[in-house]
């Protein structure tokens, strides 16, 4: 039985661990006390260190229609898929910045972002990037295996929302409509040999406490069933993007802080991720409270770091490619607007001021055997 079975019974069956987790989300729990526990556990298990990574967008082509996503198929945005050479250019830029842990991100589009293309990108950058992870459309186990063999070490897949009705309402076209297929994706990734698995929910789509409970249940299940993988959990909050989708619910900074502390206290050894979606001041405050992996200086559009890919830039209208007319724009459209715009160097400086050691390299390609 996959997590789908456990998930379907979540309303009637919750482990003592999950009940405790839920209680930590309630307002009557002292946030300061929770934060102090989270701080202590983070220190104990991760020390005074912070791992850094950068996303590298390969393509913003997509066949899915997801109402909240800037890359959504029907959004008339400027799109491009980088060539493997251009991916290398972007990766070399990030390596020059210091990064040794890169997350390759792409929209879901079998024509542009095929397994063969992904494999080529990984093989090209892995010789100089020790840790390569992927955030791409869910695949079958058999399709993942060559990507692992090429050197990809981690796979990130967010369920977006764990609320089936909301999910159906927001995902109106494309393979992403299949809720269960996505829910089982981390297990397929584990079966294929990925060593790091990232899960998360996109907060702002549905009531946050319920989303959080399902996310915690997912983590609890994966820790028991995919016991050899390093699990990371992310808590992205919806950001402004093409399509102008408005969050259905608001998750406040207080709520996010409480949630991160609750995850740290419930799952002391699990990696918790914070991206540049969040503003600088909040990120700095959350760093000691549980976060173990953060991005820095990020771009969420293909070619965003070095400007490559402009020659193939085009617009799409309802999924149809339309050549650019005149000066419509110079850059591919971003997936969402980032909030913390500080450079990697500035963030490293900030970490050092806070008494934290920024860790760029925490992996060696020798472990992948590629």
């Amino acid at each position, binding site marked *: 039985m996959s997590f789908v079975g456990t998930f379907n019974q979540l309303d009637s069956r919750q482990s003592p661990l999950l009940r405790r987790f839920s209680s930590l989300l309630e307002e009557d729990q002292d946030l300061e006390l929770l934060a102090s526990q989270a701080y202590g556990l983070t220190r104990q298990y991760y020390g005074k260190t912070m791992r850094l990574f950068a996303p590298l967008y390969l393509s913003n082509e997509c066949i899915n229609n997801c109402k909240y996503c800037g890359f959504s198929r029907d959004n008339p945005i400027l799109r491009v898929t980088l060539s493997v050479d251009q991916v290398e250019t972007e990766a070399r830029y990030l390596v020059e910045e210091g990064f040794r842990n890169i997350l390759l991100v792409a929209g879901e589009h079998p024509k542009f972002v095929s397994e063969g293309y992904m494999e080529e990108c990984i093989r090209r950058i892995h010789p100089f990037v020790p840790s390569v992870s992927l955030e791409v459309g869910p695949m079958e186990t058999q399709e993942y295996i060559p990507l692992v063999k090429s050197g990809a070490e981690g796979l990130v897949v967010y369920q977006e929302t764990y609320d089936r009705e909301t999910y159906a309402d927001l995902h109106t076209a494309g393979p992403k409509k299949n809720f269960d297929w996505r829910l089982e994706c981390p297990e397929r990734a584990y079966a294929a040999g990925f060593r790091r698995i990232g899960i998360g929910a996109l907060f702002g789509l549905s009531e946050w406490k319920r989303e959080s409970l399902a996310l915690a249940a997912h983590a609890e299940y994966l820790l028991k069933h995919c*016991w050899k993988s390093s699990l990371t959990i992310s808590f992205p909050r919806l950001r402004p993007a093409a399509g102008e989708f408005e969050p259905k619910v608001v998750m406040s900074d207080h709520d996010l802080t409480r949630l991160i502390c609750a995850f740290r206290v419930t799952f002391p050894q699990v990696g918790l991720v914070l991206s540049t979606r969040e503003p600088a001041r909040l990120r700095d405050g959350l760093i000691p409270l549980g976060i173990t992996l953060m991005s820095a200086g990020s771009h969420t559009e293909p070619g965003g770091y070095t400007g490559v890919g402009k020659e193939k830039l085009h617009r799409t209208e309802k999924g149809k490619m339309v050549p650019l007319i005149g000066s419509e724009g110079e850059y591919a459209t971003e997936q969402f607007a980032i909030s913390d715009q500080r450079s990697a160097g500035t963030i490293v400086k900030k970490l050092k001021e806070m008494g934290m050691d920024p860790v760029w390299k925490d992996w060696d390609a020798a472990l992948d055997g590629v």
Partner: protein
Amino acid sequence: MSLKSSAWTVAGRTFQSRLFVGTGKFSSPEAMKAALASCGTELVTVALRRADLSGQDDPSADILNYIDPDKYLIIPNTSGAMNAEEAIRLARLGAAAGLPKWVKLEIHPDPRYLLPDPIETLKAAEILVKEGFTVLPYINADPVLAKRLEEVGVATVMPLAAPIGSNRGLETRGQLEIIIEQSNIPVVIDAGLGTPSHAAAAMELGADAVLINTAIAIASDPSRMALAFAMAVEAGRAAYEMGLPPAQHRASATSPLTGFLDT
């Protein structure tokens, strides 16, 4: 009068210090360097996955630049390896990169508690010993495994007191006592020692040395904490060498209750 305990040897190399220090989790390489210097350690472990093995002098992986190889024996560890094959590959790469041909063999398939895999560890140890490595395997406190590893020629065994980073102290005490009693090679108690008193207790048991990382690295003053551990290790070892009185269940008066009979 000095408390200095006796020197000891591992694979023919003599050491005065009985404190190994791990190099993860520090707030900066400078803080780590200062802590190493303050406690007089001579053996330092470094995770190969964090080091630059490419020979390119990678500024994003420069931890080795902060550890003087003339002052410390740098023992690379294979943390991150999930099986024998990966650990062997890492050890070979470390040696090829110019690190000492010593290896702290760590194979933990479970990234959560980082508990060592006994089967893969034995397999890897056998191969690495044959290749000429001085192998120091991290193991659960399993006396039979310790003997099996001794038979394949490892230089020490490094049984855990409690899971890595847990600071829970000598949870495996009973098993550690058996390992120490039966071992013909040095026993280094590794992982889970969270306070100097834990380290002293481990040394009083008869351990040849202890390895400390988290408790020093996350202390508010790592250098002072490193020194506190060094002092505890010395105290524990000195007490062990002198011989400790057996514990008794009943009180024993310092002035005998029947002393009047002799006056």
